[in-house]
């Protein structure tokens, strides 16, 4: 019984965590003509490692600016800069972890 409760709690927490990324990131980006993975590969192209990519993304999301954006001028002129995130620090980290896991290159190359 205790084991069942523990597993259920873990699964519930996991589903709640995943929802931060889906609810707050994917839902908005679905409305844009550029899919969310393109931003990921832009960051990967510039920052390379998981640590650096997440750090750059977090910096931008907390204080979005043209200067810290990885997107080109044409893109920014057309779509502008996103508004500052209202997610908490933990929520932001969880969302970025999910984002990394979804599009990371590690383990996908054949």
């Amino acid at each position, binding site marked *: 019984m205790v084991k069942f409760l523990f597993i259920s709690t873990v699964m519930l927490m996991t589903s709640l965590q995943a929802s931060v990324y889906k609810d707050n990131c994917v839902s908005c980006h679905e409305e844009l003509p550029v899919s969310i993975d393109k931003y990921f*590969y832009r960051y990967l192209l510039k*920052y390379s*490692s998981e*640590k650096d990519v997440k750090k750059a993304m977090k910096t931008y999301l907390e204080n979005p600016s043209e200067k810290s954006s990885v997107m080109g001028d044409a893109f920014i002129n057309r779509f502008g800069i996103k508004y500052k995130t209202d997610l908490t620090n933990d929520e932001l980290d969880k969302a970025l972890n999910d984002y990394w896991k979804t599009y990371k290159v590690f383990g*996908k190359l054949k």
Partner: protein
Amino acid sequence: MLALKSSVIDLRQSEKKTLIGFFLLYTALCIVILIFISFVYFKVQKDFMLSQKRITLQNYSNEFIARLKHLHVNFDKYQTYPRDPRFQSAIYDSDKKQIFSTLKSDSINLNSIVYTSKKKIHFIKEPESYYLGSKYVILEIDDDLVWINKTQRDLIIFVTIAFIFLLIVGYFLLKLFLKPMRDAMHLLDRFIKDTTHELNTPISAIVANVEMIDVNGLDEKLARKIRRIDIGAKTVSNIYEDLTYLTLNNKIISQNENINVSELLHQRIEYFQTLASVKKIEFIENIQTDIHMYIDSKKLSKLIDNLISNAIKYNKIEGSIKVELKNGYLCIQDTGKGIKKEQLRLLYDRYSRFDKSVGGFGIGLNIVSMICKEYHLDINISSELNMGTKVIVKW
């Protein structure tokens, strides 16, 4: 003056040691220099090979990065890592974490540009943009080892020739190094030869005339004076004979014959009686009769004379000399000051003198040693300080 020609110079033990030491040091230095040159040459050849391979690898890497870029752009469509039969490759992120690899060698040094490892050549390239997150692109090709075989062959030839050349140079250096020493020894030998030649006639005259004087017919005071002249003449005569032996006798063919050693030993003891009486030294004889030996009589006399002369010279006042002779065995033992253990091994060196308070050139035992060597006699000298010295000759 007649200068006797002699090209034979005996180097002393210590001088031989110095020369051997010099030779070993020189050889070691040559080897170190050759190892250093070989190392530098090997390094240069390796760098030259790598610089050639680097051009090829640079071209491969450009092609590979172009394919990596294409994959990055189309990663949502396919994820097949670009492979090439000409080389193996790997990509690492900025945290030096491996993204993907087809390398056969796992020893990667991301801080170098091109290097060899386990018969593989690795080339590290940092693309301008990190396609698929790859900050480091590593290309690997086989090292065909052609360069190393060629370098080894070159080095063997070079080292052999250089070593032989350095040895020849070393030989001439050694000769140069020896020259002042040889000159000094030549000068000394020449001086001795000239001096001995000039001493011959007067010594013979003194010895012959003293022997002709009938001491019994003289008064005691004059007889004592004549005995002193006899001792002095015999001492000079002995030194003369030693020096003559060194300069002449050891170079002439020995006149070997069957010698009665017992008789000769008695004669020589008799000859030295006058000399021994000055220091009141007593001879204790234990001589077996009719002991024979096949030897040159002059050389055997020289051997016995030198041993007895030393036993008198280094003995104390009122000391004794034990002379023992039996078949294949001659022992002369004195009761003198003895010789230090560390000086024993230098005894046979020419001009070695450990007690400067008594006269001599330090050539006596050198002559003894030469005679023993010629007739394969086994000589053993043992000594105890303030107790005496014992010389045993066996044949």
